């Protein structure tokens, strides 16, 4: 069966997985290194494509006091790396209906009152495996610049690592989600081309033709649809 492979002749390197030492070939991702050493990974794995946020990880490198973060499905192991998966980080999440909130800007402070308490430490930005300027997004949200939040945070995979480091104990990824939704649903005008097409559909403009096509024999239908 298909296997993820290290390049031919890859050298073996030393890594620590959840505190235990292993030898693995260079050129594997953290998740692949876990498979290579026989770990079964179920919590902490999702799309394997860097977008679902299931595989948040922390790691340290020898001789460096810094704590690094990464998505384990996208990050290559390096000599001396010590890493652990943070498969889930507990987070508070507001309950709301985006279409019913009376004032979208005020809504932020009702749902997430802590969003105005950023102490500017910037740890959230430093921890983000997607390289998002999280601190800026928190301030953009607090100042009501939801469009700005949307632009700053579009690549957020909701891994929650920012929550793990926030000294004001907020959940920046949830705040950003609210701000993006409020911007898309409440601030942007409903798209005209979509409204126009919905009107034509609901007034039955296409029904007759679609029904006619559905009733054709396969040969007739092929003739009608054959040319671009």
């Amino acid at each position, binding site marked *: 069966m298909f296997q*993820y492979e290290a390049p031919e002749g890859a050298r073996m390197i030393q890594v620590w997985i959840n505190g235990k030492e292993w030898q693995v070939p260079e050129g594997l991702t953290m998740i692949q290194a876990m498979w290579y050493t026989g770990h079964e990974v179920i919590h902490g794995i999702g799309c394997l494509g860097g977008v679902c946020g*299931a595989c948040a990880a922390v790691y340290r490198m020898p001789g460096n006091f810094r704590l690094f973060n990464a998505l384990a499905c996208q990050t290559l192991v390096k000599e001396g790396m010590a890493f652990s998966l943070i498969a889930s980080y507990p987070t508070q999440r507001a309950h709301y209906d985006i279409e019913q909130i009376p004032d979208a800007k005020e809504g932020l402070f009702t749902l997430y009152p802590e969003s105005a308490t950023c102490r500017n430490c910037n740890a959230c930005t430093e921890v983000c495996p997607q390289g998002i300027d999280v601190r800026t997004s928190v301030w953009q949200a607090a100042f009501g610049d939801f469009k700005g939040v949307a632009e700053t945070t579009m690549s957020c995979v909701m891994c929650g690592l920012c929550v793990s480091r926030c000294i004001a104990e907020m959940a920046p990824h949830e705040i950003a*989600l609210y701000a993006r939704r409020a*911007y898309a649903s409440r601030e942007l005008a409903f*798209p*005209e081309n979509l409204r126009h097409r919905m009107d034509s559909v609901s007034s039955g403009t296409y029904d007759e033709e*679609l029904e006619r*096509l559905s009733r054709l024999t396969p040969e007739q239908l092929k003739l009608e649809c054959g040319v671009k």
Partner: protein
Amino acid sequence: MTVEKSLPINPYENLPAFDSTEPAAYSATEREDLLRRYYPDYRPDRKTTLHVGANAGDVLPDEIASILESRSLLASKGLPAVPSAPDIEVDLLVIGGGGAGIMASVFAMEAGARVLLATKLRIGDSNTVMAEGGIQVALGEDDSPVQHFKDAYRGGHFTGDPELLSVLVREGPDVISWLVKKGVLFDRDPSGNLSLRKGGGTSRPRLISAKDYTGLEIVRVLKEDLLNSAVNIWEFSPAVELLQGPEGSCAGAILRDVDNGSLKWVKANAVLLATGGTGRLHIGDFATSNHFGATGDGLVMAYRMGAKLLNMESFQYHPTGVIYPSEMAGMLITEAVRGAGARMFNRNGKRFVQELETRDVVASAIIRECEEGRGVRTPSGHHGVYLDLTAIDREMGEGTVERRFPNIVKLMGKHQVDCTKQPILVYPTLHYQNGGIASDTSGHTRVQGLYVAGEASGGVHGKNRLMGNSLLEVFVYGRRVGQEAAREALDRKPFSWHEVNLGHVERFQKDLEKEFPGTSRPEAPILFPDYRKHSHPDHA
């Protein structure tokens, strides 16, 4: 410690000069010939004829036949006795937490049903979240749902189900409107309209998107509303078997808690399979773009219960999966890059196919180049071709790639490939299950009480899907089938837990023993692929 550096062959050394001369368009005959010779679906190797079940006689890929003609996961110690009472009783059980499962659950709950959504990993862990390029919806002035229908039917090589397609294109705009109101941030043009882009095989620009994070953006929004809703959610709880009720109907399912192995018996008036695709079966040893859980569990369980499958020989091998660096094998580079002007070159620097042919034709052309020695060899011994995004910036202005495809730039960058300057090495990757469980426009399967929506279903796309139609299908049919299943579940004649059994599984096992006497069949659903190098048999 001595540090020794191994220097594997770098496919980026000695890049050929790229000649941008456009290759000639294929005639219909050339296209057909190319598909017959190179597309995995049409090749005779690695195929099995089914002997057991509703599709006996069908010739399918070995890996699909193997999970269909399989023993129950629960059979090794004899099938378990039905307990005196179920662990939970609901109107509708939705199996699968991707786009279709989320939509179905939300709308079934709104229709008044008590809903349990059970999923193998977390809510949202699915192929939906990975969708990059966009959703097809006919919004252009010179476009219409009729034109959309024609493109999709032609794109499916005239094998799609016209009725299913007709519903898809008609309900598309309305479901997109629902997403917009929920706060899904689709890209807009300067006048505030939804931006429309062109996908392969279509006659009009019709793709709406959220940069190259379309699936992620939608799932983030819907997941929040689902978690806040009254839908009961059990994560890390895959279904391992359906339950049979009166007259061969579906009456619930058995779930397995992956953390402690315990079985949970669910009594349900209706069961909706939204279990997605099969990429992790690695058909033909192809790499896959699919999420970790894409193992076709719904197909296995439905087949045992007598459901009919449609076009199960047909898969979409997306032409442009990453083949180097090898740790990224299978990861998708969206077709939208070719829509924007990216070009493909073989080892000699020649273009070899028009880049916006349908996916199956482009994939076949890449396989042909590699099999005929015009592919580029990678350090782990595979072959691919160059996908060059730099033409996009040259034609549409510096920075276009970075702006339109930030995710690709970011992911490739993590592996030391700057795709705004260097080509990406690609080879087809197993991407989408074109066929699936046969159903009508309300998601009914042949089994009473059993419904299907999303990639697990077959029929809409026929034998080839166009980009952006599956994401539309997930939302249109997720909603529609969720509502229909809820209505019928609430109206279903009550039945007793004493009428619930595993008779269909026993019957299927007997049929297997008759066809394969004395041989041990594989167990399925397999739930998770196993990539472990040193796995202990007791762990499996």
